[in-house]
């Protein structure tokens, strides 16, 4: 199949002490009997995959949602989720990719097309009949929280349309597909906060991080995307500009997952990695240096915070929580559910929708338990926010939207920038 060696990830399987802690924590194995669990699908089955058979021995690995909870709890450092991802890639290489997964991998293109005429696209796709057809024909779960195309235009077009703050201090913003096509508000909030703090936001040409393809086993295609981003963004990294992202999963892919799973680690990828930040992580760092403006206005609200599995996978602590706790009046409550269930494109698949909803039950319960006064819910991943919104009917908001609101730049209900921010940016 793919050119990369299987070494660095594969090596870790020899570290497995068969303790089954991963199995005890895998949220998928806990709710479905179709998945035997990480130890079995990962380090155990991997022994049979390496001996060069023509057919992969175990197809159940397809039920792994790639949430990485197993990696997190493994006491021996086995890269189970990566082993599983490679196993999926091997299956795709052997048998080809189902049409639906091919589409999921190309969510950027879907975003672009829908964005041409979002009202029509939304109407065309988001109606019960189309969703039923999509389920019957493609296997796209009818009730899954697939986002609507933004009717306010793409983030990139907004960014280029509106006047921008110029400054010595520059920060590159990686928006990701979902911010660009589905939730431009998140990007607007990010830019408003950066400019409020006196930084010039730069949004260079960029493309999909490749996560949906990596999750669906399309490694060669994912590699193309990764290399393309590398080429587009590395010059900024080399100029010493931090590259920040609001989507934890995109940043994770760019910073670690892609290069690790595809085995392309070199000096360039390291330079790129060192420039990349999750936006909250970057703000927390600013705060640690004493440079963050903490002049927040009071935000009197209870806010459940779901720690997304991708945020955990960064091993960077809880930067959003660290920053949000600086806001007076804000009662942020950290949940401990392992995963919202949706996990990339997993919960969009009709055969996995039920599993995803069952996995998400803990997260839904936590969010609901915060009472009716908690109208909103936050999480670092858009996917989690959509799923939580779907499962609890509370409004999903990104941590950066919360921060922008606390700076008085943003209206959380309307999901748009306040006029102050607009005036400011046109200065």
């Amino acid at each position, binding site marked *: 199949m793919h050119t990369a060696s299987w070494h660095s990830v594969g090596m870790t399987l020899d570290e497995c002490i068969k303790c089954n802690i991963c199995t005890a924590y895998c949220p998928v194995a806990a709710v479905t009997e179709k998945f035997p669990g990480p130890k079995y699908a990962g380090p155990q089955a991997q022994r049979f995959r390496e001996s060069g058979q023509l057919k992969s021995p175990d197809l159940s690995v397809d039920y792994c949602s790639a949430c990485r909870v197993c990696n997190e709890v493994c006491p021996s450092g086995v890269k189970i989720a990566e082993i599983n991802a490679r196993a999926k890639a091997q299956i795709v290489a052997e048998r080809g990719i189902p049409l639906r997964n091919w589409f999921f991998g190309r969510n950027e293109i879907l975003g672009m097309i829908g964005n041409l005429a979002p009202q029509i696209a939304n109407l065309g796709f988001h109606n019960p009949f189309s969703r039923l057809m999509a389920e019957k024909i493609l296997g796209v779960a009818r009730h899954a929280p697939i986002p609507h195309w933004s009717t306010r235009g793409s983030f990139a077009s907004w960014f280029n349309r509106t006047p921008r703050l110029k400054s010595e201090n520059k920060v590159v913003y990686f928006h990701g597909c979902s911010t660009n096509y589905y939730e431009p508000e998140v990007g607007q909030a990010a830019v408003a906060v950066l400019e409020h703090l006196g930084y010039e936001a730069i949004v260079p040409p960029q493309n999909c991080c490749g996560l949906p393809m990596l999750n669906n086993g399309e490694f060669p295609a994912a590699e193309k995307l990764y290399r393309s981003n590398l080429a587009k963004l590395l010059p900024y990294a080399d100029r010493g500009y931090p590259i920040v992202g609001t989507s934890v999963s995109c940043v994770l892919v760019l910073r670690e997952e892609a290069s690790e799973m595809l085995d392309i680690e070199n000096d360039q990828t390291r330079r790129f990695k060192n420039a990349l930040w999750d936006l909250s992580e970057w703000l927390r760092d600013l705060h640690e240096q004493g440079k963050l403006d903490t002049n927040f206005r009071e935000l009197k609200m209870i806010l459940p915070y779901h720690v997304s599995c991708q945020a955990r996978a*960064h091993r*960077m602590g809880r930067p959003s929580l660290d920053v949000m706790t600086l806001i007076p009046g804000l009662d942020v409550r950290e949940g401990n559910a392992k995963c919202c269930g949706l996990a990339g494109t997993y919960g969009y698949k009709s055969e996995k929708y039920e599993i995803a909803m069952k996995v998400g039950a803990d997260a839904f319960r936590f969010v609901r338990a915060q009472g009716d006064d908690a109208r909103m819910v936050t999480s670092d991943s858009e996917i989690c926010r959509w799923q939580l919104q779907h499962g609890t009917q509370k409004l999903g908001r990104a941590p950066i939207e919360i921060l922008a609101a606390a700076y008085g730049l943003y209206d959380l209900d309307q999901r748009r920038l306040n006029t102050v921010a607009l005036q400011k940016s046109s200065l």
Partner: protein
Amino acid sequence: MTELVVIGAGLAGLIAATRAAQAGHQVKIVAKGFGATHWHAGSIDLLGYFPNETIAIQRPLDAMRDVARVQPQHPYALLSDAQITDALKNFLALTREIGLPYVGAIQDGDNLWLPSPVGAARPTFLAPHAQRAGDLTRAEPMLIVGLRGMRDFYPELIAENLGKQGHPARAAFLPLDLITDRRDITTVQLAYALDDPARRARLASELKKLAQAGERIGVIGPNSVPGIRLTNALCNHLRQLGARVDVNMDVIAFRAEGDRVLWIESEASGRPLKHRAEKFLLATGGILGGGINTDHTGKIRETIFDMPLVAPRDRGQWFRARFFDPAGHPIFRAGIPVNREFQPVDANGARVFANVWAAGSTLAHCDPILERALEGIAITTGSAAACFAGQK
């Protein structure tokens, strides 16, 4: 600012963090993964055996005083009676508070005797309430029920062994598909499956048919589920106390100035993450838990701060010739020597850092598994070390 960073999320680390958080300190746990709670029985072994003795200990609290006499460097010898009582009382109160009450033997201060997964009588001091029916000092005959096809649990073997030791027991089987469609299932998956009331009711009604009057029923022994429950409940409780629990944090560096550690650093997807704190408490486990490691040359290292260790000098001395030697293997006694305040010391007995404490299996001069003292050492030293750290 974090006052105390506890490194390690095994029982010692969880208890230390809880005690510090209860005392109102800002606490954070930084751990690579979870600890032995996930593969032990979830009961609290305080002291079961002296090295070189095959007769189990009946009254562990008394025996701990003997340990102090014969092994003056043993972690238990560093603790006063008051510290031990305080730690155990606090643990019992804590388990009630988190909804997982633990109980001891009917005769206060005795060890409990519970059947092991091969039917041996296992001395332990406290057990989850639900395990109490297994107490071998009780006379009722036992029915050991297995699920056919489930690995690692052999009712016939258990019943036979129990019978040989004078505990009447018989074995029976139920089909696995009574509970699950899986062909292969772990105890944890079984526990999840039995969270479903319908499956539980099915199991209960089949068990009723099997049991005879006066029998008590033992089902699906192998460990880990109670330990996992305890860990989860303690982590949740810590969060409620305002503490942070971060796992998947592999500590790769630290910075000290003079005799104080300023921060530790853990590996991350991007830049390493610094954890600054006023105080640090090591609860990383021993050679089995990863707090102490060896390399191919036989060099033994403490993995976080490279603390001075008490350990066999060369590889030839790690093991005794016989696997089940009642004296145990010297390598398992390797660990960090500490003073009476549970601060690591060097070979001259001088404190290494002013703001570092250590607790649990990472401590030298004990063999927690051989002595059947794993959780007892974790709880008592974790609690004492946290109290000392809190006073500074």
